[in-house]
């Protein structure tokens, strides 16, 4: 647990975590996918479950579980495929490329797991502008696992993405969250 940390150490960790998340978001928006892939651990799980409308007493069914269907359910190989595709110049959903903007807010260090990975919660807003006048906006929360490497830098070891939409109101989700 990180609760034993001094306020100063906590603030420093918060600062480092935020800057890491901003850098990572910037790489995606700048279409620097190769560098983005380098920020991931080999064992990353990148997952967006399907969300459903349920009554309040049955919200245990709100999200599909790991093992059920999902919108993203990627290991590093699948993420590399996605990135390779984005770079392929014939991935038509992104050719001409969209203009994306990943905004990360309400960043909170939630916990440190048994592997020493920092569990970070945040809100996200992914805005996409495409061709002349297509606009999409995806909003939700995320839970990220950050691994501290020997050189002090972070890599992303896990990302669970909880979109607030149920029916996806866009024609695809061809971007990374």
């Amino acid at each position: 647990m990180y609760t034993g940390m001094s306020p100063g150490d906590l603030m420093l960790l918060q600062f480092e975590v935020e800057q890491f998340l901003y850098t990572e978001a910037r790489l995606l928006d700048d279409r620097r996918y190769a560098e983005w892939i380098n920020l991931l651990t080999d064992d990353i799980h990148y997952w967006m479950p399907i969300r459903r409308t349920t009554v309040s007493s049955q919200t245990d069914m709100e999200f599909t579980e790991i093992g059920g269907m999902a919108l993203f359910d990627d290991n590093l190989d699948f993420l590399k495929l996605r990135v390779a595709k984005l770079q392929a110049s014939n991935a038509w959903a992104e050719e001409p490329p969209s203009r994306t903007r990943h905004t990360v807010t309400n960043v909170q260090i939630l916990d440190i797991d048994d592997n020493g990975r920092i569990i970070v919660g945040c809100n996200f807003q992914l805005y996409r502008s495409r061709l002349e006048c297509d606009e999409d906006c995806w909003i939700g929360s995320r839970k990220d696992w950050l691994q501290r490497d020997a050189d002090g830098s972070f890599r992303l070891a896990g990302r669970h993405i909880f979109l607030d939409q149920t029916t996806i109101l866009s024609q695809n989700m061809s971007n990374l969250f």
Partner: protein
Amino acid sequence: MQDLTNRDNLESLVFMENFGMYGNSHASCCFQVGATEDFVVRATDWVDHKSGKVDRRIFQTRDLSSGTGASICQVLLNTCPHRGNTVCRAELGQTKSFFCTYHGWNFDLDGKLIAVPGEETYYRGKLDKSRLGLEPAAQVESYKGFVFATLDRDAPALQDYLGWVGMVGLDLIAERGDMEVIDGIQKNRVQCNWKLAVDNLFDWYHPKVSHGSAARVGLLNEDELRYMNQMVILGEYGHAISGAAFDEQKLAEIKDAAAEGRELSGSDNARVWRTTQDALDAMGPVGVRCGGHPNIFPNLWVSAAGPPQLCLRIPRGPLATELWWFTFADRNQSAEERRAAVMIASHIFGPSGLLEQDDGENWSHSTRASTGTVTRRRPVDFSMGMGLDRVLSNNSGQSYIETVVNEHAQLWLYRSWNDWMSAANWRELIDNHSVVPTSTV
């Protein structure tokens, strides 16, 4: 109440859109595995494409009173007969009744109005509850667990409607094992006309280009994207199957190998079920060879070439379509097999699917073009293979076309659509619909 999250007991429901002659097609489909408890799944709208009108969500309940294997889902109009409120707003869940949140009328799982606040005091006993239930579908029938419903009493019986082509289409999932639905329906909205999305499911011409990036990054085998052996089957009322065909000899080899216990490749292993007598009895010699994509007219794609999935193309007006993906698995699979199958399924189709993400923009741009004045002066081109292919048939009476990539099924879709739009009712459609071609197409 049953826990829907319990996969073993899950009764999976899949509803197909109704349109065309309103309420006239068999329009819902449900894969049923014999659950025994009450539950409800709200599914979709009924869209009248002639008028563009939408009827409210249909939902379905399993009748508690019938615990037999023959029990069927209830399919009900999600509209309170009092003022029209939606009585079920959840997307899935369990319930013992449908309670209207406006004035509290309560309906049982058969749609019967069972409680009315103030029935004695305010209505003074004069309310005829028996005529104020939730409107049920006119016909609900199932075929191997896929339940279809229609709002039209004059529609033909389900098997008459499906014909052998529709049944083979469903068999392509039903016959491969002890199937169940995996939790989670992917849903998203594309700004295209639904017919372009259906046209596309028959289209084995586009993958090499539309999904070229998937091939380039190694997800698809570029060689396999040359589809030289195609089989097209056209069915009455607009059903069709189009796509790859398995070679009879190849299937025979697989059969022999399986019988002798020889090790098979993964993909061959996935075809063993086609070589069984059960499959042959159900699907006939042509049906077992189908490796293509069936469409149950109007808009239910049986995606059986990869992991077994269904996709509904649900119209949301003429310029938008919702895609709903249902995924199936064999309940006898190991956990690892199941996990691997799910991973594949979730990466191919759906809005983030490595294949499907590239389809939407092509469809939406093609839809928008169709509204242009000058563009409309020129016909769209469906000439691939037109007039060049012969319809074959075998002793089983199954007629089919063997050829290369073509546009026969797409043309059949639009022709059948035209039949439906020209008919005022089922009588007229039965009398006047296009005859399935028997010589040259």
